[in-house]
């Protein structure tokens, strides 16, 4: 397998897209899938459950130092930044919010870029701010693959447009094409 991890970032207007993507992935998907989605910081429970309804892959919010496993979806927990750390583990952080966001998509993507290099796939979905653009650029610069949801399809295209301006993305895909691409990796 050419790739080792998929990270998806999204904000306003991304919930349905994320749900559609993860519900299309089979139970034993060969990669770990990281989700960094802007969310209300004070609502700790319910999000994993809502995403789990249609997903065949197990979804969890990692605790600090939890080992990363293929075939699982990991959602960045509320009010923490989520990093991939050396040794194939997660690390959490309460460093200051970036782009008003904690979790910050940029920071999660940057750590994935740093640890997986060209074996990382980054995907930016609908969203109303610029978080994620620099993160996707970091993945691209490290030799990884940069995918952006087609802004024409996004409920709010600010985030995808910012990503497209920040870096030379590999693919601009509609949701169905993202799904097809992820399934073809098997």
């Amino acid at each position, binding site marked *: 397998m050419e790739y080792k991890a998929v990270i998806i970032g999204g904000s306003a207007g991304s919930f349905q897209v994320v749900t559609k993507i993860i519900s299309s992935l089979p139970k034993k998907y060969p990669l770990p899938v990281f989700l960094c989605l802007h969310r209300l910081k*004070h609502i*700790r429970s319910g999000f994993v459950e809502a995403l789990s309804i249609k997903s065949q892959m197990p979804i969890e*919010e990692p*605790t*600090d*130092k*939890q*080992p990363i496993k293929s075939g699982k979806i990991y959602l960045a*927990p509320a*009010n*923490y930044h989520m*990093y991939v*750390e*050396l040794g194939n*583990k997660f*690390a*959490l*952080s*309460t*460093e*200051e919010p970036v782009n008003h966001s904690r979790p910050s998509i940029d*920071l999660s993507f940057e*750590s994935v870029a*740093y640890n997986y290099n060209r074996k990382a796939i980054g995907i930016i979905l609908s969203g109303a701010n610029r978080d994620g653009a620099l993160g996707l650029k970091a993945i691209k610069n490290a030799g990884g693959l940069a995918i952006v949801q087609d802004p024409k399809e996004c409920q709010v295209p600010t985030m995808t447009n910012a990503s497209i301006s920040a870096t030379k993305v590999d693919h601009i895909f509609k949701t169905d094409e993202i799904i097809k691409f992820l399934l073809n990796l098997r």
Partner: protein
Amino acid sequence: MINNIGIVDTRKVIKAINETYNYDFNDYALTSFKHRLIQFINNNNYNNIENFIQDILKNEINFEDFIDKILIDTTEMFRTPSFWRELRDKYLPKLASNRDLKIWIPHVTSGDDLFTLEIILFELGLSNNVHITVTGMSEKKLELIKKGGEYSLKKMEVGEANYKRYAGKFQLSNYYAVKNNYAYLDTSLIKNVSFKKGIITQDKSTSGFKLIIFQNHMIYFNQSLQDKVAITLIDNLVPAGILALGSGETLEYSSAMNKLQVIDKLEKIYKKKIG
């Protein structure tokens, strides 16, 4: 301006710090440590990492300032309101009933948890039943806490929103005064506190605590330092004493776990096993 530094350079900085100032950051979690290091290097106008390392070796950086800036102090008052509610409702009244509750807040980087706890104790009418020991590595941060912190109004808004979710008796603004656009917490709240400068893994002078609050510090350590720190914390707890970590933290992967019992999996509350 430096945007990123590699592992090799990060290790070189850590080695230089250790040689010059005899403090070991080797077991800090890499990503967050690197972020703070990059900020420090850029704020001090270094254009390359070699110059920075040379200045460390020549003892030309202010180490107190470095410690102050490298420690992550960006938590919130009443962060995770459900934890503080649980502490208020299930633990503090029982623990403090016989006037000798010793609490330890180690490795403080901000006054957030201390003032949060003090406000809760005040509202429970238990302030006089409790003695709190606060230790920290950074002299600067300890001095700031003693003055009531120096909070931006934006940070106080965050605290106020958390306090409402916690469902306190009053408003957070009852506990602070604003001067020149900064909020200072009421220092009469912290009369029952002893402050001590100290490094967590070397702290042997303290003991006999019934409650230790150690939230969102373990995340900045690697597993091996987490294990070491967990042992220090447990050693300083009385049997059946309580240890509270942050909501994203766990001792599940720690070698110290055999000395503890999980009593609240969601809020990350542990109890020291008896015997």
